[in-house]
């Protein structure tokens, strides 16, 4: 059976990717690693994968008006609910940022002046890294449907895991609580929530746990940089206790984590004896036993 483990956080910058990288290099067995933060993928910087395959991901479509055909009737603008059709300098045009790709303007245009163009600049890469296989998505900046690209990354991971007989898939999730996060955790076996001792992180953790209530998933919380605020760490522990969510570990603040990243290593590779490495190993053993 394939085990899928997702590392999420709500708040950005709490240390998801550094912890995922450490997990990926602790395991004696090979893993399939998925970077699902398709907006701002970073794990490849530490893992330096050799890319074997690159696939095009169609994130959606945008409408385009052919001004040779357009009769300036304005019907498209009346129907568009995304305020994506503007009328300036005597002609109608599509505002690409606002266009949602619903195709309604194309369908209602009486003279067929509107067509849809595919957004095909996003990519999905897969290949080898030093402890297994890695898949990561690269959403073209500004494009939509990151949740669908996440689903595509995860499908590819399952395929590879099957072919290569690897039984662990590690998922580095995006921040937030929107579609990409939902897509990165649905159906996984375990969710590790990485938080840090701050009011902002606590408020984000509350919303993350609310989101997880909709899923029946096994989960635990790790408090990263816990010694930066013992007071907030206590509050987070109390909050988790009140919600019945277990604390699986408390990781100290240590600038060595940044040093490791600069050297394209995970913290457990860079210094297996550091207090951070020891705690991460403990967490890994805890959640995989």
């Amino acid at each position, binding site marked *: 059976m394939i085990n899928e483990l997702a590392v999420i*956080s*709500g*708040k*950005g*910058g*709490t240390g998801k*990717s550094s912890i995922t990288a450490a997990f990926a290099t602790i395991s004696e067995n090979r893993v399939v690693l998925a970077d699902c933060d398709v*907006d*701002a993928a*970073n794990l490849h*910087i530490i893992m330096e994968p050799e890319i074997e395959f690159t696939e095009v991901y169609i994130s959606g*479509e945008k409408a385009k008006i052919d001004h040779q055909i357009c009769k300036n009737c304005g019907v498209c603008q009346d*129907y568009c*609910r*995304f305020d994506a059709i503007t009328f300036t300098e005597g002609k109608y045009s599509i505002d690409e*940022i606002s266009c*949602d*790709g*619903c*195709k*309604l303007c194309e*369908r*209602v245009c009486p003279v067929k002046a509107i067509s849809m163009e595919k957004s095909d600049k996003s990519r999905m890469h897969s290949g080898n890294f030093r402890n297994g296989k890695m898949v990561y998505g690269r*959403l073209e*900046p*500004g*494009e*939509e449907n*990151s*949740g669908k690209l996440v689903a595509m990354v995860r499908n590819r991971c399952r395929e590879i895991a099957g072919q290569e007989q690897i039984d662990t898939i590690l998922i580095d999730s*995006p*921040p*937030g*609580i*929107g*579609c990409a996060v*939902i897509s990165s955790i649905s159906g996984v076996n375990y969710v590790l929530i990485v938080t*840090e*001792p*701050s*009011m*902002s*992180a606590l*408020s*984000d953790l509350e*919303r993350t746990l*609310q*989101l997880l209530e*909709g899923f029946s998933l096994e989960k635990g919380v790790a408090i990263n940089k816990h010694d*930066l*605020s013992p*007071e*907030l760490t206590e509050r987070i522990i109390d909050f988790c206790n009140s919600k019945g969510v277990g604390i699986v570990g408390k990781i100290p*603040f240590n*600038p060595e984590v*940044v040093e490791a*990243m*600069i050297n*394209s290593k995970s913290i457990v590779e860079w210094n297996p004896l550091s207090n951070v490495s020891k705690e991460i190993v403990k967490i890994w053993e805890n959640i995989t036993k």
Partner: protein
Amino acid sequence: MFKIAVASGKGGTGKTFVSTNLYQTFIEYGINAVLTDCDAEEPNAASFFKTELIESKQVTQKVPQIDSSKCLFCGKCQDWCAYNAILIIKERGLSRVMEELCHGCGACSVACENGAITEKEMLLGEVINFSDNSGCKIVEGRLKVGVYTPVPVLKRAINSTYADLAIFDSPPGTSCPFIHTVNASDYVILVTEPTPFGLNDLKLSVEILQKMGRPFSVIINRAGLGNRVVHDYLKRENIELIMEIPFDKEIASAYSKGKLAVSGRPLLAAKFSSLARKLTDKIGGIAL
């Protein structure tokens, strides 16, 4: 109104730290300014101020409902739906709307020839106004947990912002929520950290802003913690480094408790004053 977005590709670089402290600096100068929290998935800015909730407005979206007594199960609405949010199975007399997939474009209502589709409002989140006696005004977009996209909520928050100067605390990333926020802004400050992750995400953000033609500059937060890759990149690309904030455990600790770091720290306050001056020089029309 002049609008400044504080953004970053990478999460957790200090967007909210910069926007709340910069905002506090502007209101201490007596500027009529508003802070708009556009990170509707995880809004946090308001918690740094002692403001009270003034009003909250619901943000909704239209979703279709199908009257099965009028539906002929022709499937046209399903064909017209670009989001796979409608399922029609004629043999089973089944017509179903998956509301969480619906974007509210209205195509299905136009498609239906039998008058079987009407629309109702679905809650996406809220836009909340906070303020206090000292002239502090905060607008917060707050997504309902479980809703797929924050874009309609953050757009409404932006459209509910009125002042001489607005600071937008942007959502992280480089996809649609970020784009909608910077698209509504006149000037963008990118906050990054001096690490390879910070640099990678900074480059992505810079690429978009250059494509959009938005003027911007960069703040390096937690300087001293990483290496010089971001500094070298900025120099090479001729990008303005408008401020550097050194890493300081004490600042991190104050921030973690929900306190404004400029209060009671003259050195940091002077840095933010200098940032505010540089920004007003760029804007024109607003004097400190």
